[in-house]
């Protein structure tokens, strides 16, 4: 009989003894560090090792920026699929899947609440919903946030996270750029503050409209921000793009951002900016 031969007891992998680690650990996209999920959440979804800013949902963003007790508004709009668009799949089925996956009607959430001491209107894009693309619902919902800011004279903050206009709504999606820009023009005429926050990624028609029209344009570190997508440019010029091209720091260097701000410091930065933008005349009128 061999010393090492196991005769009676087999190694059995009993279900209840297994420790499931799935979903508890997350690998950083940037530095490959394995991070305990709870730690990542406690660190505002920023890698503790390399500082990589993970993409976060619109709801998480609102929780990070507003004090508890905020109100979600303008949630009732739903796309009517104006073009009856269909490619390999129908737009209707894409919408249904995105609605099921995110629990939202479209790629946008409006909220009113307090950021520090400031009553604000906040509009946040949801990248997980068809790439945060902007069709009639996103356009109208953002325009309603602008209207709310206009009517209540509260500062407006829009957080962009979007691949651009929603192709499946064709020309209808392009018109949303003009719609929001016109609404912002009216807000600007009334000297009501508007701060644009650009997160990873912000490209196409969203960059080429409201995201670049803030009194301040602020970005999170290393976010992809541009007009044309990197692949389109590579195909057009037939050469590889340089490292760091179209990242936040690149835009800052070229003069298109006011600041690149870490997620942890974002709220205090915004609060400070809103102090500055508060009109002295308003206080006088109120007093």
């Amino acid at each position, binding site marked *: 009989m061999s010393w090492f031969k196991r005769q009676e007891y087999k190694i059995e992998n009993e279900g209840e003894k297994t420790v499931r680690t799935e979903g508890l650990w997350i690998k950083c996209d940037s530095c490959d560090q394995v991070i305990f999920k709870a730690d990542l959440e406690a660190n505002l979804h920023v890698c503790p090792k390399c500082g990589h800013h993970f993409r976060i949902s619109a709801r998480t963003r609102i929780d990070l920026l507003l004090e508890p007790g905020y109100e979600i508004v303008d949630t009732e709009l739903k796309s009517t699929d104006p073009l009856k668009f269909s490619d390999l799949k129908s737009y209707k089925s894409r919408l249904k899947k995105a609605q099921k996956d995110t629990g939202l009607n479209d790629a946008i959430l409006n909220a009113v609440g307090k950021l520090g001491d400031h009553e604000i209107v906040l509009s946040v894009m949801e990248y997980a919903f068809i790439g945060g693309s902007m069709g009639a*619902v996103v356009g109208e919902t953002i325009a309603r946030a602008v209207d709310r800011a206009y009517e209540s004279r509260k500062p407006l903050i829009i957080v962009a996270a979007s691949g651009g206009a929603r*192709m499946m709504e064709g020309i209808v999606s392009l018109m949303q750029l003009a719609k929001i820009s016109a609404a912002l023009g009216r807000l600007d005429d009334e000297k009501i503050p508007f701060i644009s926050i650009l997160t990873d990624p912000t490209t196409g028609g969203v960059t080429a409209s409201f995201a670049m029209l803030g009194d301040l344009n602020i970005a999170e570190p290393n976010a992809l921000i541009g*007009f044309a997508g990197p692949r389109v440019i590579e195909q057009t010029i037939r050469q590889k793009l340089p490292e760091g091209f179209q990242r936040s720091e690149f835009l800052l260097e070229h003069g298109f951002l006011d600041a690149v701000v870490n997620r942890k410091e974002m709220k205090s930065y915004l609060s400070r900016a809103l102090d500055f933008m508060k009109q002295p005349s308003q206080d006088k009128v109120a007093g």
Partner: protein
Amino acid sequence: MTEQAGNLEQVQAVAEATPAAWVKTELARHSQRPYPMDFIESIFTDFSEIHGDRAFGDDAAMACGMARFHGEEVMVIGNLKGRTVKERIERKFGSPDPEGYRKALRAMKIAEKFGRPVFTFIDLAGANPGIGAEERGQAEAIARNLIEMSRLRVPLIATITGEGGSGGALALAVADRVLILENAIYSVISPEGCASIMWRDASKRAQAAEALKVTAQDVKSLGCVDDIVPEPVGGAQANPEEAAQLIDEKLRWHFNEIKALPLEEMLQRRYEKFRNIAQFYTT
């Protein structure tokens, strides 16, 4: 004359075999189609070009100038495409860089200062995608035009004469009246671009053109333009003079309508048009 008849037959033969949206796309891109500057030269007189964006350079793909419209002082803006290979390359096939949009805005601000109406003409595939364009803020330049045109305090009329390519076209088309030629197209993305993203196959461009609803008629029925300008039989290239005349008639009609409005009402209407445009949702 025989050449025109030949053209017409060819166009009709193609029309029967391909989706209507793709036929229109090809007509909009026809190499003999009059370009914005051709129309400007036939419709306006005394065109004096003004150059430069006062910041970086003078974009060869964008032309702005003082001109007269039936004797009245106006500002005219149009993108430039070029006919020869050399000229096309110099003008980047008609796709403006940020400095082109900034030059256009500067011209509009001059017009505003002196109370002169602005006429824009658009035939471009899109704003130029490139390293330099990104470095100099293509997105910011377009965005700035959108907001400033929405509140520019003089009459604004935009005409899409060929291709109305996405944000690059819209950056000249936030206007009191947006006109589009019968065989022109207006789209958020080129049919080729859409085909390569959604079908992963650029050759599905005819299908994509159909799905995107890019024709003047579709865009009008979606409420995204104000009026369609008829073209001569066979398309504008078949009779450029007649095409220019047809544009001129429409421009005069719309211009007279806008001019009759008090300034504040004109601005309010422009604002409301764009604030309420393309509302396709249920509540």
